[in-house]
Structures are given as structure tokens and as C-alpha cells.
């Protein structure tokens, strides 16, 4: 199924939360939807789901807008921060209401409860659920219709490291089953071991979209060596940009750590430390936009 976002725009008065945003989601892949807080990720996802009416533009799933899908919850599942639960309902009650709403069947309720671990607290009132449990219940609700597409807005917010690791594995498995997954985040680290594709936005505008490796084009290698000047000279001679980051420390751009190590060995340079430097999202922005904010 083709998922296309075309010219999506949302203006609140004079403020443009999202501006002429276009991207595609590659099938059976986890796509990371990256951008700082307030960059328009949530508004974009809500427009894709028909919760917010776009000022201009469209988002389509297999050529249809979300609201025009015949049984939308069987096509697209969504985990949104703003979705709540009735406090008097148990986790099971909540799933039952929505399973009935879209005719997904009671057996499917049991399936998603086991799949997401909700079964462990199925009969607890939703008011007594922890953040992690609520996130699992949201995920279970999104999966009731066994959708081929999943949209998740900052799903790891408030989760402990164990919960984040579980979620990451779970989403990776969903993509491996052939599902198309869009996960928004403002932290690159959450996405880098999960996503194969990224959509990067800033101030409501697309910065770039493409394979994850796109972001690593900006990676650098930190090298600590007593022969810093010699290595710097050798690397510069081959056209590699080198920065002096300290008296015995170099930051090498455009080469991988093995390439730097081999060059050093070739010239007989002793290395005390060699570290691939992962850029923070902010550094990536700096690189891709020439503007730190």
C-alpha cells in the first residue's frame, strides 16, 4: 500500500504548524519521523488520521484518505499520546468496546492482549495502570484490526529502559511481518537502531527524507594519537577534512572508523583511541540545515 503525504499544511491563524510537507512511507519498513519538540510531528500525524483538518494538502493510504477507508482500524493503527481510557473500564473493557465498534471479534481481543502483554493486567482498572501499561494498552488498541500500517507518536515517552527495549523489538517484529511503521521521536538515539528510513522535519517543513544512512553522512571519527599533526597532514593530503579537537585529538569527517585506522596504520601512526562519533539530532540539523535551531 502506498502511503503518500502531499503538500500537507496546517495554519493556526498566522502560525504555520506544518508547511507544504510531502513524503512517502516505504512499505514493510520502520520510518523514523524526526524533529525537535514543536516541529509539527504530532500535527502531521493527526492530519494523516483525519483528527485535524489540514489547511491544504492530503495524506492517503492506498489512494484513500483515512476517513474514506472502509474499515480504517483494519488498515491503519495509531498510538497517540492524546488518547485516553475511561477510568472505570478495565483494560479488557476498553479493548472490547473498540473491537465491537469495528467488528474485530472477541478472539482478536485475546490475541492482542497476549501479543502486547496486556493480558497480565487485563482486569485492572485503567486508572491504576502505569505509563508502560498504558502504552501497551494503546498499542493493543491500535493492533485490534490487524492493520498493515502503524503510526506511533513518541511511543517511548515516559517508558523505562526495559519498556523502550521491548517496544523497539516489538516494532521491529511488526515491520519484519511486512507492516509499514511510522514512529515519531525527537531523539535520534531512539530511532537509529529501529528505523531503516527517516523523515526529518523542522519548524513544520521537510528537511530531508531518505534511508537512515543519510544521517550518518554527517558522522565523524574521534581519534586520539600522540602523532596528531602527522595524521592530520596525511589525511588532509587525501582531501579528508580534519578538525583539531584538542592537542592530541582529531575529529575526522567523511571517513569510517576502519578507514581512519587503516590510513593511520599505513603511515605508522600510533592510535590511543578511536571512536565513531554519533551525531546528536541537533548536530545533524546543524549539518543539514546550517542552523542549530
Amino acid at each position, binding site marked *: 500500500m502506498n502511503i503518500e503525504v502531499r503538500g500537507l499544511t496546517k495554519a493556526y491563524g498566522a502560525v504555520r504548524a506544518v508547511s507544504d510537507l510531502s513524503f512517502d512511507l516505504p512499505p514493510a519498513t520502520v520510518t523514523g519521523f524526526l524533529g525537535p519538540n514543536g516541529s509539527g510531528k504530532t500535527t502531521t500525524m493527526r492530519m494523516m488520521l483525519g483528527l485535524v483538518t489540514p489547511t491544504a494538502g492530503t495524506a492517503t493510504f492506498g489512494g484513500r484518505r483515512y476517513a474514506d477507508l472502509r474499515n480504517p482500524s483494519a488498515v491503519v493503527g495509531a498510538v497517540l499520546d492524546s488518547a485516553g481510557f475511561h477510568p472505570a473500564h478495565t483494560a479488557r473493557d476498553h479493548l472490547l468496546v473498540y473491537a465491537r*465498534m469495528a467488528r474485530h471479534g472477541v478472539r482478536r481481543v485475546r490475541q492482542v492482549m497476549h501479543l502486547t502483554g496486556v493480558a497480565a493486567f487485563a482486569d485492572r482498572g485503567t486508572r491504576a495502570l502505569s505509563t508502560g501499561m498504558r502504552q501497551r494498552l494503546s498499542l493493543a488498541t491500535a493492533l485490534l484490526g490487524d492493520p498493515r500500517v502503524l503510526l506511533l507518536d513518541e511511543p517511548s515517552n515516559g517508558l523505562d529502559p526495559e519498556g523502550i527495549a521491548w517496544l523497539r523489538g516489538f516494532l521491529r517484529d511488526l515491520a519484519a511481518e511486512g507492516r509499514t511503521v511510522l514512529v515519531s521521536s525527537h531523539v535520534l538515539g531512539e530511532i537509529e537502531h529501529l528505523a531503516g528510513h527517516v523523515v526529518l522535519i523542522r519548524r513544520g517543513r521537510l528537511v530531508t527524507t531518505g534511508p537512515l544512512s543519510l544521517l550518518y553522512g554527517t558522522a565523524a571519527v574521534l581519534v586520539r594519537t600522540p602523532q596528531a599533526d602527522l595524521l592530520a597532514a596525511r589525511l588532509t593530503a587525501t582531501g579528508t577534512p580534519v578538525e583539531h579537537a584538542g592537542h592530541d585529538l582529531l575529529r575526522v569527517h567523511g571517513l569510517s572508523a576502519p578507514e581512519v585506522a587503516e590510513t593511520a596504520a599505513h603511515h605508522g601512526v600510533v592510535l590511543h583511541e578511536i571512536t565513531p562519533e554519533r551525531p546528536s539530532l541537533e548536530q545533524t540539523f546543524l549539518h543539514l540545515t546550517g542552523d542549530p535551531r
Partner: protein
Amino acid sequence: MTALLFAEWTRLTRTRLWLWGLLAAGGTGALIGLLALAGPENFDPPLPALHTAQGTHALVGLLGVTVFVPALLGSVAVASEHRHRTITTTTLYAPRRWTWLAAKLTVYTGVGLAYGLLATAVTGGALFAVAAAKGLTLGLPAAAVAGMLGRIAVAMAVYTLLGVAVGALLRNQVAALVVVGAYFYFVETLLMVLPGVRELYPYLPGGATAALTGFTYLTDAVATQTGQAVTHLLPAPVGAAVLVAYALLAAALAIAVPLRRDI
């Protein structure tokens, strides 16, 4: 649509709201029974006794004053979708938003009717039991009492529909409670004393309700205070139709206005 109805029914029955409804319906009926047991002639100021037509009429009419209770339950049920933010998931599951509102209106009208039937059955049972225990006959024939109670039950169903529509329109539980309560206890009473508006009273929600329930305390009181002629109410079926029209108008507004808002 049947799936949506079933889902709304599940949503309601999996909370305690139905239990509160049950208690409220049974409780108000029992309260009327208690008042009958005390005897209207012993009230302060005294009302006509139970064996007079006016006495029976007044006690049954008191139940008619509680029609706003199921309306509040209806408002709370809908506004809670906003309060607990289940509205997001509901809208994702049924993006054509009028469909789930229509399902709610349908289910809660049924629930309101059930509420009304329970409240009136308890009231009727209590009145006849008290009369039997006191060894007297009610001031009205059984058929007349049953007819009044039946109209009150219908009024309760229509009010629940109205409550759901107002709740969907205002989205805020407290605001819905305040608006529904303030209108019936305050705003309409004030409107009544305006000369021009008084002619419209039969068509206002309170006037239509009075026509349906046959409880004309308010119009009688205004007539007594002002010395003006009693405002003539509509026939009961027309009163019911006017109330349904108000409910449908509120529902149409609820669909046209807030359901288009961004969630």
C-alpha cells in the same frame, strides 16, 4: 451501525453509570412513595390529600420534576468521552463522526426510556401500595395515573436524548450540567414573566415538558402571582414532539459544529 450501537452499549454497561442510573430511578420513585406515606396533607404548607384528585396529581407530577436526572446522566456519558480523551480512539475507529453520535443518541434514548419506566413503575407501585396500606383509594382512577406515569416515562427518554445532544455540543461535563440545570431552574422561569415570551412558553422546553407530564405548577404559580390568565399548554403528544424537535436540533448542532473541530 449495529456494531456502533453494540459498542456504545458495551461502553455504558462496563462502567458503573448504569448502576447510578438504576439507583436514581428507583430512588426517586421510592422518594415519591415516602412522600405519599407521610401524606401530602401533612406537608408544610399542606397539599391536597392523596385521596383527592389534586393530591394524587401533585405527587405524580413531582416525579415529572426529576426528568432532568436522566438528562444529566446522558450529558455525563457523552462529555466523559472528552474528559477521559477516549474521543480520539472513538474517532479513529469511526471517522465519520456523526455515526457514533447517532449511535449514542439511539442507545441513550433507549436507556432513558428504561430509566423512565423503572422510575414510574416504582412510583406507581409505591402510590398504590401506600394507598392500600392506609386503606384509602387514590384520587384518580388507575388508568389516569398510569397515563400520567407513561407520559413522564416518555419525557425522561426525550430528556436523555436532549442531555446527550447538549453533552456532545458542550463537550465539558461541568458546563453541560450547569447549562441544563440553570436553564430549567432559572432561565426559563425568568423568561416566563416577560409578557411577550409568556405566549411562547408552551413551545419552550419547560412548557413542552409540562404539557407532556401534566405538571403545571409553574404556569399556575405565575398566573397566581401576576393575576394573568393561565398559559394554555400544548396537548401532550404535541409537547412530546416539540421536545424531540429540541433534542434533534441540539443533536444537529452537535454534529454540525463541534464534530468538525480538530481533536
